């Protein structure tokens, strides 16, 4: 097949950028990486990009195609070539470009290192010298985070990092969750304290681009949510982000709606709220804010309260609650009929593991 590519070249010596177009012949099964190889071998030996495994596990070939991060080895080109579209290939975002499609990964690894990315064992080694005995269900809590191949696609797309380059970022935070959720780790609280600090979890803007662009299904944003939930469960809720999240719950429970007027004082405190009074009045004048009194109570508020109580009574707080939801969704995605009871689903031969339930943590 004929494949057209437009590649953003970057000359590190002169600092010049140039969009170059290539037209190549490639086999039908070719990936973007295969196409770059053909360009480099047969058209222009100076083209620079990283590659190694070509099977989506080494994480070398992260780059952008039409403005969104991809692993070049995962991107099959057949449909794109058939459609006649000529994609634009460029280096990943949020990292300095070294040459063509090669970025400097140093800032990425510095952030990786900043979360103490190694197990800090919280247990004595088992006396027989053998393995820790832990259920698969309990380990499954960090299964998604353990899939991360450090390719940088999430960091490339991170909007929060674009606004604040110091933000710890989706990859490092997912790595942090890998250890916060590991039952063998003994530094959970210290880790959470640090992650609640400056440039930590609450700087995430929840745009979900990282989830969207991760080629391995790590879902870094969900990892950040788990860290937030676990922090609040452990009583680490001093950050505005935590207060903000908690107010949503209170607000939903009491009136069934989000009471935005009270959101600012509850999140940012009274002083900050007073400073913003004028802004608030302007908003009110334009009809953007409902009057705070009397509180507007939703018609079905009882249902909202029941839902809240149900979740509270089941103890679905902390990361466990989110993980449990994920597993339920995964089960749905892989199709049971919808008419079986949960017991029937878990009891049938070869069934998926029963998802982690919060109080099982005590057995670990």
């Amino acid at each position, binding site marked *: 097949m004929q494949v057209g590519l437009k590649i953003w070249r970057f000359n590190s010596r002169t600092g010049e950028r140039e969009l170059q177009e290539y037209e190549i012949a490639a086999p039908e*099964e070719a990936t973007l990486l295969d196409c770059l190889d053909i360009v480099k071998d047969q058209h222009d*030996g100076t083209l620079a990009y990283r590659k190694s495994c070509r099977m989506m596990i080494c*994480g070398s070939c992260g780059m952008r195609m039409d403005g969104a991060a991809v692993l070049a080895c995962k991107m099959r080109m057949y449909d794109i070539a058939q459609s006649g579209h000529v994609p634009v290939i460029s280096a990943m975002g949020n990292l300095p470009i070294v*040459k063509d499609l090669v970025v400097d990964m140093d800032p990425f690894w510095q952030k990786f290192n900043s979360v103490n990315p190694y197990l800090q064992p919280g247990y004595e080694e088992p006396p027989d010298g*053998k*393995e820790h005995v832990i259920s698969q269900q309990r380990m499954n809590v960090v299964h998604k985070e353990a899939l991360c*191949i*450090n390719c940088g696609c999430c960091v490339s797309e991170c909007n929060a990092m674009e606004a604040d380059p110091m933000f710890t970022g989706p990859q490092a935070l997912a790595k942090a969750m890998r250890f916060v959720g590991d039952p063998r780790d003994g530094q959970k609280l210290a880790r959470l304290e640090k992650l609640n600090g400056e440039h930590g979890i609450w700087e995430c803007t929840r745009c979900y681009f990282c989830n969207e662009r991760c080629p391995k299904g790590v879902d870094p944003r969900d990892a950040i949510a788990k860290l937030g939930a676990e922090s609040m469960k452990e009583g680490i809720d001093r950050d505005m982000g935590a207060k903000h999240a908690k107010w949503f719950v209170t607000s939903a429970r009491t009136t069934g709606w989000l009471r935005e007027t009270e959101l600012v004082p509850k999140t940012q405190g009274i002083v900050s709220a007073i400073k913003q009074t004028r802004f608030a009045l302007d908003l009110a004048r334009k009809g953007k804010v409902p009057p705070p009194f009397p509180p507007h109570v939703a018609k079905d508020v009882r249902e909202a309260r029941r839902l809240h109580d149900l979740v509270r009574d089941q103890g679905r707080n902390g990361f466990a609650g989110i993980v449990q939801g994920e597993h339920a969704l995964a089960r749905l995605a*892989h199709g049971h009929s919808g008419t079986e009871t949960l017991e029937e689903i878990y009891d049938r031969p*070869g069934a998926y593991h029963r998802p982690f339930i919060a109080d099982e943590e005590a057995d670990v």
Partner: protein
Amino acid sequence: MEATHDVLVVGAGCAGMRAAIEAHDAGADVGVISKLHPTRSHSGAAEGGINAALGNAAEDSPEIHAFDTVKGSDYLGDQDAIEIFTREAPGDIYQLEHWGAFFSRREDGKLAQRPFGAAGSPRTVFAADITGHVLIQVLYEQLVKRDITVYEEYFAWKLVENDGRCQGVICWDLLNGGLKTVGGKTVVLATGGQGRIYRTTTNAYACTGDGAAMALRLGLPLKDMEFMQFHPTTLYPTGILLTEGCRGEGAYLINSEGERFMKRYAPNAMELASRDVVSRSEQTEIDAGRGINGSVMLDMRHLGAERIIERLPGSRELSMTFAGVDPIYDPVPVRPGAHYHMGGVETGNDGETELTGLYAAGEVACVSVHGANRLGGNSLMETITFGRRAGRAAAEWALSNTTVDVPRSAEADAERELKALLDVSSGERAWQIRNDLGTSMLENFGVFRRDEQMTTQVEIIAGLRERYKRGVVVEDKGEVFNSDLTQAIELGNMLDLAACMLQAGVARKESRGAHARPYDYPDRDDENFMKHSISRWVDGGPELSWKDVRYTKYDPMERKY
């Protein structure tokens, strides 16, 4: 010189990182050189698992593991090394678990173990089907924890021998350009294999045998170079690996007639016979016209969606991405592909080589644990156990107050050679020679080997080496990330190693393990060839000799599965 260290490790896959950690813990100052960031190393692509006789799933012992390994090696493995290996493996696994490795678990919370080919007990510890990835991550985490210096994207080019010792490595700095010399009182080679010599291989682009080629040029012996393992289940058409764990979990191999053909070749073990046996069976089926597009089919449908999703998610993802087939619903086309090189730099049981101060571990080395055919799950274990042993030995030697000196002349020679490489302005590009090498090796030195094909291949390689010597054009003359240059150097490494492989292959007039000559020497010949082939580089070419296998108590017997 850029810097010097007590122990300098070249390569940052499982063996290299394990060696670095051990040397650090032994008190040495350690540096690691790698042409990739450590987590990009190809150990991370290992899927199925790592063998140790823990006995969690069924009764097992290091002795049974040793027996299986000796038999699997077709009696070419060195038995003392194998006994050390199987005895120390369980402790190494427990240590990885304590460091935080994310292994799959049994119902009772202990480490799960799955059946693998030619193993007498379910012995393979695993993490779904991303075991290598999990190991690479945990080892890198431990590297970070110890703050060990890593020279990332340094391409190791030449070992420095001075005063009868190996004292450092001359590298090309990929990211910034320029030759950099890093000194070491001892140097540990852990550069992996050279599967890229073949066109269809499970190996990464990085697997070009750099370490073995560097050692070869220093005059060191390479051992058992004719033994390239062909993995039975590599995806058509890309050669990407599907783990043996698929068959460990119960997948079938079927031919175009829908027959489970392994019943005719290994009636007891069926799909879980050793890799050489399964690959030969597949190739026989394909050659007899019972294949589809030169492939057979790996059928997982009967395992069911849940088992596939839980135990083999990576294999499913690879099948869907690269073959367009979801194994839950359809069989996957697979064929034998070059996977693992049993041979390598000859070492003793502590990784020591013939040259003082130089050690080797992992796929680049040949201890030899694997002999003529490696068992699935034994290579990851080898990287850990022998990586650790090499790291310890290198540290102990280095800590005995040795100085480091790299003569200026060594650096000057390298600079001249580099200039010559970059100065070639007309002629071929490296990829043409690389493609010819890969295609011809697959055709003439694959699963089955014919005398006349091997003779032809010897000439082809001589011709390719001649073309390479005339000079290949490196179009990129720049300093920054000049992968055009490193790819040209890699090609030179592969050509020399291929020459060694062929010379040893022609000379081994028997069928043993991965070296199958059904047309002229269909049987194993213990009387004449229960010996390692030894290749040395003499006057610009390989020179062959033989060396006895180290034997303890396992008598050769017929191999049936």
